[in-house]
């Protein structure tokens, strides 16, 4: 990955610098190291694409929920007690046979953390941020994704505190599936708009 430090000596230097900063912040009484540990643990366990997948699966099985989600995603998600708490300004955008949605943050790395976890390196790196708004079909090709040439592509650049969650289309052949079964088909990339949900029976 070109955007990453893999050089051992640089890594060590950075590591020392990070440790020094933490020592300074701790000695000055700004932070408790145990609180930093707890933040990391919370990120590692409480957030992730499983949250978004539950929301998508519910929208696929419950038309009233889907309508509420598209109307006000923050409010709709807050009614699902078992899903992560969610902040304000979440917007869900629906893929249809006519329109495909794709989300980017050209200026930094804005991403619906509570729904999808921390963004992957590619989402934060220059190739995606530069090209998603100018050549979205080319970017999709990098993911091995192609859309019919007449499908409208809508790219959402997250330039404010609004956060976007793509509601992908429900795969065919899933009639009668439970919400839990459906949630397992929902991939992270399908909720960013750079992929599709898994299809039944396909190798994962």
């Amino acid at each position, binding site marked *: 990955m070109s955007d990453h430090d893999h050089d051992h000596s640089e890594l060590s230097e950075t590591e020392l610098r990070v440790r020094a900063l933490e020592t300074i912040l701790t000695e000055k009484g700004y932070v408790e190291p145990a609180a930093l540990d707890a933040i990391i643990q919370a990120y590692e366990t409480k957030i992730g694409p499983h949250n978004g997948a539950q929301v998508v699966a519910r929208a696929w099985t419950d038309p009233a929920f889907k309508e509420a989600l598209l109307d006000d995603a923050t409010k709709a998600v807050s009614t699902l007690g078992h899903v992560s708490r969610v902040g304000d300004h979440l917007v869900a955008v629906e893929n249809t046979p006519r329109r495909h949605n794709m989300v980017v943050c050209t200026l930094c790395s804005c991403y619906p953390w509570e729904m999808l976890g921390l963004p992957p*390196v590619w989402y934060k790196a220059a190739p995606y941020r530069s090209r998603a708004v100018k050549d979205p079909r080319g970017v999709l090709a990098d993911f091995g994704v192609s859309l019919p040439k007449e499908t409208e592509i809508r790219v959402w650049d997250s330039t404010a*505190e609004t956060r976007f969650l793509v509601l992908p289309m429900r795969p065919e052949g899933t009639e009668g599936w439970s919400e839990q079964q459906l949630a397992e088909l929902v991939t992270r990339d399908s909720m960013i708009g750079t992929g599709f949900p898994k299809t039944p029976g396909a190798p994962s």
Partner: protein
Amino acid sequence: MNGVHDMGGMDGFGKVEPEPNEPMFHTEWEARVLAMVRAMGAAGAFNIDTLRFYREALPPHVYLSSSYYKKWLLGLEDLLIDKGFIAAEDVAAGHAVQPPKPLKRGKFRLDDVERIMVRGKFGRVASAPAKFKPGDRVRAKNIHPVTHTRLPRYVRGHFGVVERDHGCHVFPDSAAMESGENPQWLYTVVFDGAELWGPDADPTVKISIDAFEPYLEAA
């Protein structure tokens, strides 16, 4: 500022390279940097917009050659030094040699972790009616502030249509400079691909940004 962070539409960065089964953090220090940034922000050392401005203000060659969390680390150090929370002498010594500066919300403790796992609220009460409504044709102003802005270069001067009204929100351009929240109306504005990228652009592509009212003029 017209920095290298404003990447929309730039060429030459190559293919997107997804990493299969990517871990949440690639090294332990990345996680520590994330935690320090979240903790110091929650303790009141800075707001999110000021923090973004410090990352954008890294020298272009540093911005482009540093990994994501390296940029976070460098931006955090610069910000904390500038705002007087740490001193260059502390960094040189590798531990605190100067006295601390009081934090707006005090020390970040274990009890504070729960509240930071939900994003902050940026919606504010409007002090004036919205100038635009969905369906209005607008032009993104041709402005080039040297400080923080969330109006990307690739839309400036171009015509689009207001699609959604998100209400009134903290204005990052003001908040980043610590000159108050200065709430402004926020809209999703949609542009045709050809409007932004010329007549050869893919006719099926539309791009939207979320634009604060001061970024827009009626068209």
